């Protein structure tokens, strides 16, 4: 068990008081400490948005990239050094609007990345427009008569794309989220954690009082089997007075992308010799053209 204080930096987040990001941030640091990881062993990659500022507030290798491009950036990091624990933290706009395609490809590659989505179902940093996970009829500045779009169901999308770890938590239960993150880090391959996250400023309708009475834990249901894909598809569609959280689906049957890449069999790329080829190798290359 490591020390959570290893990950502290003396910078105060710009998040609103009561923001759900605090819970996610705390859970992440606790999960890293619980797994006895040190800051230099972890790379937290994010995009743009309130929650995407998380790496700036955490003592880890952090990279805040472009809006929607978090997973490709993280993929590059993982391929260069697959010994790093690579974690993405980004919002629903980043992950499911601009980045939805990348998520499907990360899932079907099964690359070893933990993808934590801060899903507050609204655009916070740009002041309250509807998001891809906003419910139909959401009135916002860009949908004054109510959004006419069907919301994305990220769990269904991830399952359909072949994700090997699909989970949901909510930022009001830091212990549950901490546990989920540790499970996701231990998982080989792509792991999605969709986090229901209250935005106390722009989405008061779905704040703590909305989620607290509704969420229930799949782990507490003795009949639920997270290795059953069909069951996972069914559960992922449940969204009413009761909202399931926990691991919807998990399989270790598929190898991770980095495990299948031939060049990585000799260790991380970054630790391999650079441009040191034997005379024999060079002549073999040249012979292709002779």
């Amino acid at each position, binding site marked *: 068990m490591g020390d959570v204080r290893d990950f502290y930096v003396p*910078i105060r987040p710009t998040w609103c008081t009561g923001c759900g990001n605090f819970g996610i941030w705390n859970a992440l640091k606790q999960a890293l400490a619980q797994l006895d990881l*040190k*800051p*230099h*062993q972890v*790379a937290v*990659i994010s995009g*743009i948005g309130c929650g995407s*500022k998380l*790496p*700036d507030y955490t*003592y*880890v*290798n*952090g*990279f*805040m*990239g*472009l809006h929607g*491009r978090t*997973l*490709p*950036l*993280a*993929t*590059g*990091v*993982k*391929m*260069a*050094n697959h*010994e*790093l624990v690579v974690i993405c933290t980004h919002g629903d706009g980043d992950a499911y609007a601009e980045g939805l*395609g*990348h998520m499907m*490809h990360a899932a079907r590659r099964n690359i070893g990345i933990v993808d934590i989505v801060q899903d507050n179902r609204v655009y916070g940093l740009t002041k309250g427009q509807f998001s891809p996970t906003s419910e139909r009829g959401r009135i916002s500045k860009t949908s004054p008569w109510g959004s006419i779009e069907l919301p994305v169901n990220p769990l269904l999308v991830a399952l359909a794309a072949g994700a090997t770890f699909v989970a949901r938590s909510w930022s009001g239960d830091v212990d549950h989220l901490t546990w989920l993150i540790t499970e996701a880090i231990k998982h080989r391959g792509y792991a999605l954690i969709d986090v229901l996250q209250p935005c106390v400023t722009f989405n008061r309708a779905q704040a703590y009082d909305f989620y607290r009475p509704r969420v229930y834990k799949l782990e507490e249901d003795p009949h639920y089997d997270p290795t059953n894909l069909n069951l996972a598809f069914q559960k992922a569609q449940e969204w009413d007075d009761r909202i399931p959280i926990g691991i919807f689906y998990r399989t270790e049957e598929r190898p991770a992308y980095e495990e299948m*890449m*031939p*060049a*990585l069999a*000799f260790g991380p*790329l*970054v630790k*391999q010799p*650079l*441009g040191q*080829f034997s005379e024999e*190798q*060079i002549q073999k*290359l*040249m012979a292709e*053209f*002779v």
Partner: protein
Amino acid sequence: MISVRAAGEAGQGVESSSAGFAKAMMRSGFHVFVLLDYHSRIRGGHNFATVRISTEPLWSHSEPVHILLALDEEAIPRHLSQIVPGGAIIYDENHQVNPETLGGDILAVPAPIIRIAREVGGKELMANTVAFAIAAGLMELPLEPIEGIIQENFRKKGSAVVASNLRVSRVAYEWARENYARRIPFHLTPRAMPGRMLMNGNEAFALGALLGGCKFVAGYPMTPGSPVLEWMAAHAARYGVVAMQVEDEIAALNMAVGAAYAGVRAMTTTSGGGFSLMVEALGLAGMTETPVVIYEAQRPGPSTGMATRTEQGDLLFVLHASQGEFPRIVLAPGTIEQAFETGWRAFNLAERYQCPVIVLSDHYLATSLRDVTQEALGLEKLEIDRGKLLSEAQLDALPEREYKRYAFTEDGISPRAVPGHPKGVYTVMSDEHDEMGHITEDPVNRRLMMEKRMRKLKLALNEMRPPSLYGPEEAEITFVGWGSTYGPLREAVDRLNAGGVKANMVHIVDVWPFPAEAVKNILSRARRLIAVENNYSGQMADLIRMMTGIEIKERILKYDGRPLSPEFIMKGV
């Protein structure tokens, strides 16, 4: 000097058999240059490849054709006007061709192309093997080098395929010798010329990148840049490279940035359309000072343009792409040798200056094949310089939690750590940031950070190669070109001088930061300047005016999607 052109439908193997024929000619001791001309389709459409063969070194293609291998009927009317007097057209005996319409000074060779392919080889598909063997017979060149190529190229398909192709070529060759010996005036005598290699610009660049330590490449297939990705993928397992075909160009450059941040030499390969999608991540590399290489093989635009054609239309685009200002380096190799050198040099520059490096190639350089020597590639010059990358020992010596990734330094370059070391933990921001990497909008920091980043360009400028001068120092005409126009320009200069017109050329390879002083010096000595470019507006000439104040009014421009030829340049003078 002989140009042999094979023309036919896509799918008839024009491209691969021409490359094989060129290799056989190279092994016979000749210099070769292969120009490909093909449509953006898998089957049908009219494709052709021209193999130029000479005892003198070749730098480009040339318009006149000496022997045409017409693999379909359409080929003759299309290429007739380019066939020189005394030239020959080899076509199938069953094609409806009236030899009188070819002109009296062109030899018509109705040949049993299909018949030999079918009866001797068992497959009509071997028609191109037949046609090239007939051409060799016509020129009275030895068949052995062609047989050697057949053995190598078809080995994977089994000994039966090798044997039937060998039989076919022998019969076709003998047929030509018996029926058409001594009927054309073009003959070359084979000689020993060891140490030759045949490659195109894409291959040369990829080879240079691999030997230069490129460990990661991500790309989305787009002509003409994707063969670099393919070549790297083919060599990835054996040489320790991760080569990924990814969902789009946006992902490709973001991945390369991620991999470079994590410490490996990383690149992406694309064409202008794909580069358009990468522009945002280009800015990310600029802001985060991440060394990354972008291979951009130009084709005509805008939009999808002409997928399999050539142009130099992206120069000003790559110089200005992205919002905001940040250092970038742009290199435009013009020859196979320069493409190879750029392959490794681009990574050195990227790491030394911690910025994106864009390599501007184009379809002409990327796909044309030329013979080079291994010595000319300059392997002994190849060095790997990772710039201010902190070593393990330097990292160990850092104080706890005080590493400044973006430290203000005199030269603008901050010592770089890659993730994985306890002392080298830091955050990278696409936002403006302070020396530690944390977000800040402080005006003083912004000014200092901008100045720090931009300072690097001053230093990088010292490394930019000045333009090269080819031809006599004193000349009536000075051509100004860049990138792949090198070859046609050089040949135009040689021919003009041989014909009594004193001409030389100034060729620019290192485009940005622009070596303004050197360009100014060399151009101010010229009497009559003519810009020669493969684009509509003369983008380099405009850049020269912007950076030096020198206005080049005369411009020879070609923007029909086809490369400049020496003849086109000479006509334009």
